[in-house]
């Protein structure tokens, strides 16, 4: 199914379009952050506002404990949140797709071993593992990315594996065998292209989860303390007792942003899944 048809089909899903619009909005904010908010405005030393001031007087969403504009923090925070989410997803998808394809397509003990490995990683609880890894590897951006990637690939692998198992049995794969194709040809020319749509749909959903994961880790204080993300904002808010003092402008905006971005990715992912669903395609 060509790109044009995919787009035409996607367009008919209103929720997906809404999600895409929302997503585009946030991505543009992240890209154009320097233009939207002066880089100096997030430097602690150059803060101009009062401490934990509520919205008003030039600060749309008030200020944090250092006097920085919440709006500026949100804009700059989007970069880390989105970046970490996407990079971690990339790692998870690459590992997950390779393992899923291999364990689904091949027979014998290597495939079974990979399957067991996937199952094992699937049941490991995310937060404890993340804490352990973060403690061992140290608090940095790359480590967060690695942690999320390592804990996230298994669910992708499971999905890809079941999809591979189903496609492997399709008559057209057997036809390729009949025509003289070897296993590599069958896998790359027939199985993989028909699995990829699922991979794309799953990717968007995984990004959503990765962003949530980064927010969680940062909130728990495992993130990079020198960077700003929506998660670190929540951590800081919690740290200065924003909950008890009622500084809602510090807590709610980053939370809302995370929710909106996750929602956007989820809507797009769900629409894509419907678009690529083979049963819909074969009319």
């Amino acid at each position, binding site marked *: 199914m060509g790109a044009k048809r995919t787009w035409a089909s996607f367009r008919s899903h209103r929720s997906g379009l809404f999600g895409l619009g929302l997503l585009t909005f946030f991505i543009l904010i992240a890209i154009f952050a320097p233009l939207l908010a002066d880089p100096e405005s997030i430097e602690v030393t150059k803060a101009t506002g009062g401490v934990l001031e509520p919205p008003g007087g030039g600060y749309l969403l008030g200020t944090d404990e250092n006097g920085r504009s919440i709006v500026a923090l949100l804009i700059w925070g989007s970069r880390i949140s989105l970046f970490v989410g996407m990079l971690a997803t990339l790692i998870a998808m690459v590992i997950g797709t390779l393992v899923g394809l291999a364990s689904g397509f091949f027979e014998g003990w290597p495939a079974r071993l990979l399957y067991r490995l996937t199952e094992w990683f699937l049941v490991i609880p995310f937060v404890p593992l993340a804490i352990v890894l973060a403690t061992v590897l140290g608090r940095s951006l790359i480590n967060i990315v690695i942690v999320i990637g390592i804990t996230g690939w298994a669910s992708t692998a499971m999905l890809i594996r079941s999809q591979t198992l189903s496609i492997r049995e399709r008559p*057209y794969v057997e036809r390729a065998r009949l025509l003289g194709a070897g296993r590599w040809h069958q896998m790359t020319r027939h199985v993989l292209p028909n699995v990829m749509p699922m991979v794309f749909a799953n990717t968007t959903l995984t990004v959503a989860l990765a962003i949530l994961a980064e927010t969680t880790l940062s909130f728990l204080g495992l993130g990079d303390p020198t960077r700003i993300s929506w998660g670190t904002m929540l951590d800081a808010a919690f740290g200065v007792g924003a909950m008890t003092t009622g500084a809602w402008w510090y807590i709610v905006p980053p939370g809302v942003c995370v929710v909106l971005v996750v929602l956007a990715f989820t809507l797009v992912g769900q629409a894509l899944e419907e678009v690529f669903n083979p049963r819909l395609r074969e009319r």
Partner: protein
Amino acid sequence: MAEPPFLEARDLGVEFTTRSGASARALDGVHLSVQRGEILAIVGESGSGKTTLARTLIGLQAPTSGEVLLEGAPLKYSMRGLRALRRRVQMVLQDAAGSLNPRQTVYESVAEGIRLHGLVDRSGEQRSEADLVAAALSEAGLRPPERLFLRYPHELSGGQKQRVLIAGALALRPELILADEPVSSLDASIRGEILALLLKLRQDLGMGVVVVTHDLGLAWNIADRIAVMYLGRVVECGTTEEVLSRPRHPYTKALLSVVPEIDYLEPVVLTGEIPDPSRIPDGCRFHPRCPQLANGEADAAGVADDCRTVALPVLPADGNHRVACHLDAANEPMRAQRARE
């Protein structure tokens, strides 16, 4: 010494182990021979083993006993051996709609075989890949072929999909094509065209065809010879005229009698269905459902006990009208006598 048959099965057996641990014999001893340029129909119901036989002939399934021979030489199941086989023997699978990769264009589906076997360099006629694809599509009746190059399978009708599959097989210039139920999923009115195409392939290109089907009318339409299968064995074989006009096996007779277009046989509707291949009956495998055992004919001829306890030998594929039936064997002297008169 006569030329060996082009493709041959000798005492072919395929046994599966089911999930419950029982062993199911999908193929239980089959001799078959296909001559060059011959059209053979393998006829049977589901569970008869006909599809397993076809898949074993082309190497998709390895036999658990017996062997498949190509021009007298046993098949080699190595990658190279199978590739060499598939250049000369091709197959069109049963599910036409599912046999085409939905993400590949018609061109790519047909070119796949050409590319896999590197046919473009070897043809020596300066024909490009596009020429070969166009030629294959034309031969399969899709004209003008270029119009379909960029179409996707979901844009084609059932008949067109079937022709594309045939073109894909033709592109390799095989000497024999196996077709598994080539028209059963297609509309009745286009059945004739696809069958006429298969006949044309034999006529114009000298290609042999082995058709696997449950449709006796199809065999009457295009087959030279026919082999009737039941529960993993061939129970009757011979020329189409012999087997369909003068059937001798009770199963063949029953099958023919229920075909609505038949007028020279009283309908005999068998009870029950083909038993599970993991529970093949003793003696003649058809005896539990045999109308001629149930109505006493076998008793009268004295073979009823044999029917229940004595297994029949595998029918030889020698071209004669052969029947695997105790009753028929008992009546043989009478038949020979009548033939002499």
